[in-house]
C-alpha cells in the first residue's frame, strides 16, 4: 500500500503503547481506515519486522494484536534484567494444564485431580499473570473459579484457547494401554 506511511507509523505506535491487544476494528477506528486496510498494514509491518535486523514481532492473541520482542532476543533482555529464563515448575505446569483444559475450575477440583495441595503452584501462576480468578462457583462456600489469561496465550505462543494442543484423553488412555500390552508381550 502506497502513501500509507503515516498510518503504518501510527499502527506501530499504537501497538507499542497499548496494554491490551488491539483488535482490527479498534485499530481501524483510530486510524480511520477500514479493516482490510488494517490487515494489509499489519502484514506490511510484519514484513518489515521479519528482517533479522529488527527485534520486534507482532503477536496475535484472541483476535487482537500486540507488539513484543522476538524470542531470539530474550537472552539480551534477560541480561539487562539479570534474570535467567526460568520455566515453570512441574507442579505449576500440572496446575496450569488442569486449568487450561478444564476451566473454569476451583482449587478443590485441582487438588483432587492432582491428589495434592496446589496452593503454592496456583499462587505462582496468578502472580505471573497466567491464570486469574474468573468468578465464583455457585454452591457451598462459593469457591473461586480459575481460568487462563491472555498472558497465558502469549506465554505459550497460542492465538487463542482453541489453539491449545488437542488432548484426546480417551485416545491417550487407549494408546497407553496398547503400549503397555506391547511391552508385556515382549517380556
Amino acid at each position: 500500500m502506497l502513501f500509507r506511511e503515516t498510518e503504518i507509523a501510527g499502527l506501530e505506535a499504537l501497538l507499542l503503547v497499548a496494554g491490551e491487544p488491539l483488535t482490527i476494528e479498534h485499530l481501524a477506528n483510530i486510524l480511520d481506515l477500514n479493516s482490510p486496510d488494517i490487515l494489509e498494514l499489519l502484514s506490511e509491518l510484519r514484513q518489515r519486522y521479519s528482517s533479522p535486523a529488527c527485534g520486534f514481532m507482532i503477536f496475535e492473541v484472541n483476535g487482537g494484536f500486540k507488539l513484543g520482542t522476538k524470542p531470539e532476543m530474550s537472552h539480551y533482555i534477560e541480561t539487562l534484567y539479570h534474570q535467567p529464563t526460568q520455566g515453570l515448575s512441574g507442579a505449576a505446569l500440572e496446575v496450569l494444564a488442569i486449568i487450561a483444559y478444564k476451566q473454569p475450575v476451583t482449587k478443590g477440583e485441582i487438588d483432587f485431580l492432582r491428589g495434592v495441595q496446589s496452593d503454592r503452584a496456583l499462587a505462582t501462576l496468578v502472580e505471573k499473570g497466567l491464570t486469574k480468578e474468573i468468578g465464583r462457583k455457585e454452591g457451598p462456600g462459593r469457591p473461586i473459579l480459575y481460568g487462563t489469561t491472555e498472558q497465558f496465550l502469549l506465554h505459550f505462543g497460542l492465538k487463542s484457547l482453541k489453539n491449545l494442543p488437542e488432548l484426546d484423553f480417551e485416545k491417550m488412555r487407549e494408546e497407553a494401554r496398547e503400549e503397555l500390552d506391547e511391552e508385556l508381550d515382549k517380556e
Partner: protein
Amino acid sequence: MKKEVLAKPGPYIELPAFQGPLDLLLHLIQQEKIDIYDIPIAKIADQFIDAVRQMDDLDMEVTSEFLVLAAQLLYIKSRYLLPKLPKEEAEGEAEDPRQELVERLIAYRSFKEAALILGELEVSSGKKYFRTVDINEIRSQFKEEGDPLEGVAFTDLWEAFSHVIVRAEQGVETKTVEPDEISIDKMMDDVLRRVILHPHGTRFSQLIRGNSRMEVIMSFLALLELLKEGKIRCEQSAPQQDIHLLPTEKAWEFTEGE
C-alpha cells in the same frame, strides 16, 4: 542421597521429586509395567508404603496426602482379604473397589501428559517480552475529569467575585428594596440551571451577578457549594482571564432526579 538409597537392602526404588501421591503411585505402576485397570493392590500397596517410608528416612517431606493414599490402598487391600458378605454376593458383581482410584489415576495421568506438552510448548515458543505501559499514567496526562478547580486558585475566584461586587455597588440606580430571603438551596438550583444551559461554559462574570449585594453573595456561595459537590467545574485559560464554569456529569444527576 542416591547412594544411601542404593546401600539400603530391599527393592530399589528411585525417588525422583514426586508431585504428589498419585504421581508416586503412577510411577510404581509404570515401573512394574502393570495394567492400570488391573492393579495388583496388595503388591502396589506394600511398595507404596515402602516408598513413603524411604521418603521419611531420607528426610523428605512426607505430606499427609501420601498417608491418605496409603490408607486408601490398605483399605482396598483389606476388602480383598475379607470374605464377601452374602448380601454382596447375592447382588452379583459388586463394584470393583479399585474403580475410583483407577479413574483418578487416569485423569491425573492425562493432565500430567498435558503438562508435559505445555512445558514443551513453553520452550519451543520461546520467551518474548512486552512493553508494560502504565495506562493510568497515560490517562492522567489527558485531563478529562480531575480536580474541578484545576488551575484555578481560590484567590482567582475571590478576585472575580470582588470585581462583580464592585460593579454591583457602582450600580447606577439605587433602589431600596426590602431584602428578599433567598435560600441557598434555591440559589444553587438557579446557578446550576444556568450552568447546565451553557454546556460549553459560562463566564463567571455572567453567572455571578445580581441586583443586590445579597443576591451576588448568595449566588457565589451557591457556586462554592456546587463546586464542593462536584456538579460544576472551573476552567481558566490563563491567569487574570475570565473563569469559565462548566457542568460536570454529576450536574445531570440533579436534573434527572427532579
